């Protein structure tokens, strides 16, 4: 079914293929696909993305890049992105609540 492996499939039968879920020599023959298969089964299915993820990600990156050199904290950064996201969505014409 699978001949090369640069993906981790979402298709369940592919997860059971030997290439994905078999032992991998690089990892000391650990069947690492099994670890990820178990993990996949428990991921929260209800995570909701927003309409401006690109803006959110850019803003988080900017804030965290400052935080790691001591300009504010990660927490400050999240508060700033909360505000910038509300402002951005309002400018885009979305109805926003917090």
């Amino acid at each position, binding site marked *: 079914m699978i001949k090369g492996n640069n993906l981790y499939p979402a298709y369940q039968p592919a997860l059971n293929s030997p290439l994905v879920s078999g032992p991998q020599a*690089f*990892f000391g023959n650990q069947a690492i*696909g099994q*670890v990820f298969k178990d993990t996949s089964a428990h991921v929260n299915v209800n995570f909701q*993305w927003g309409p401006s993820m690109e803006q959110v990600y850019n803003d988080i990156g900017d804030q965290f890049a400052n935080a790691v050199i001591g300009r504010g904290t990660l927490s400050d950064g999240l*508060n700033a992105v909360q505000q910038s996201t509300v402002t951005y969505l309002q400018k885009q014409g979305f109805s926003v609540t917090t």
Partner: protein
Amino acid sequence: MKDQFVPWTWKQVTLGNAVYAIPQDSGPMGLFYREDIFKKYNISVPTTWAQYADAAAKLHAADPNVYITDFPPRQPGWFTGLVWQAGGPLFTISGQSWKVSINNPQSQQVASYWQDLISRKLIKTEPDFANAWFHDLQSGAVATWITAPVASPPGSRESGVLVPSSKMLRRPLVSGASHLCPSGRRVKPFMATGVALRTSSSRLRSIPSRLPSSLSGSIAISRVWMR
């Protein structure tokens, strides 16, 4: 058809009864760690976030050149994976409005956890997928990497096998997914679905050739624990 796909990936491509894409690639995250480094310093592989912070301190005390991991400041998809696991909603829909909660309590909990490690200088904070970062992975200056299975590099040597953590996740980490839309075009993940970026970006695909074969047999994987 639905039953053929990992449930969370199916939810990403559906709205109500309508199906908008076919899930293709996905990025559940695990803890990639250097078994040999943990053994060398006689430090147990962590099975809780608290133990992970303890191990960070022990490792760095044992060798000031070794850090348990890197916090990549400009990798918000990675951070979002941690918030997703913690159950923090960045956005929800409230009637006809978007409710924005980027700084929800779970996000702040995740931020505080990493801020503590940063403030105590127990982790690195360099950009990921940069030369220095690759060097740190290769030289053992960084002992773990919490990431998705696309990081699996090829290799050939055998070594010890690790039993995954006994304290398993109930809500594991996930870093992203990509999907095939009806046109057959593979869509940039977050444009199509709002999903974090990692698994289908071209730079990530270059990883397998860049993780050095010298690490063969040194890396093991475990699930990442809940708080």
